[in-house]
């Protein structure tokens, strides 16, 4: 078994209203960052996972996303294994 650092990114689906992202975009505009046309706010999770292989660590993390970390109705996720 090897210790892997798995990073999971959970983002609201593009078509959905993301009020947090809109609020951040408004605040950036107020600060003069007029070049920002859109902001989306998601979640970044860092997991330390014991797994026999890199692929297995990624597969387990995807299973975790399916069951708990992301809600398939409104969120998409990406899994990246950073080291190991």
């Amino acid at each position, binding site marked *: 078994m090897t210790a892997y650092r798995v990073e999971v990114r959970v983002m609201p689906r593009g078509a959905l209203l993301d*009020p947090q992202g809109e609020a951040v975009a408004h605040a950036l505009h107020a600060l003069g960052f007029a070049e920002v046309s859109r902001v989306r706010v998601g979640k970044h999770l860092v997991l330390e996972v014991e797994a026999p292989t890199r692929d297995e660590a990624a597969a387990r993390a995807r299973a975790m996303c399916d069951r708990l970390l992301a*809600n398939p109705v409104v969120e998409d996720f990406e899994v990246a294994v950073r080291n190991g």
Partner: protein
Amino acid sequence: MHRVAVIVFPGSNCDADTLAAARAAGSDAYYVWHRDTDLRRADIVILPGGFSYGDYLRAGAIARFSPVMSAVGAHARAGGAVLGICNGFQTLCEAGLLPGILMRNARLRFLSRPVQVRVEATDTPFTCLYERGETLELPIAHGEGRYVADQRTLAELEASGRVVWRYVRDNPNGSTDDIAGLCNAERNVVGIMPHPERRNAPVLGGSDGARVFQSMEACNATQLADRVRAVGDSQLRV
């Protein structure tokens, strides 16, 4: 008199009001801690409002994996009545017992104030004493009440009359199609964002919510008893 299990999660904060409202309606109501796996022969299960597990990750996302939730799922699948109020509604959605999800309010703020809702369906165990089209004043107290579901689910909810309550006059949280509460296809699992348990006596500012609890006493016996009995689940006492 029905046995009503009020589930208590760490972070539930409407459990005592819900228990009192159920008892005021004549139910034999009692608490079941989220670590218990036995609903103690409950006829009806209520998931109360609150902030289970601090709303970490997503509201209700962690509560749905509490040990008691397998028993709640089995009770629901056997036809037993289940009501989720506010955080309980969020938990039922996360558990897949109701479709869709409740997301951050459109204007981001936590809202705690009375709203008006219209009763859209009276053929559920929690609304049978209401008139269809009746407008109620009930308080909301939530930060994540914006109902979202895919187009197919929304079409199905409308086609089968599964929207049970709808916000009228103003939609406080940006909820899709003004949905304030809904039920599953079998109509035994119901979720509502406003708090009927906070309006069940004049001293609380109104009684518009009382019939949610009176309904479960009055209707569950007559309308749902056959279905429950037919399932033959020893856990369900009619």
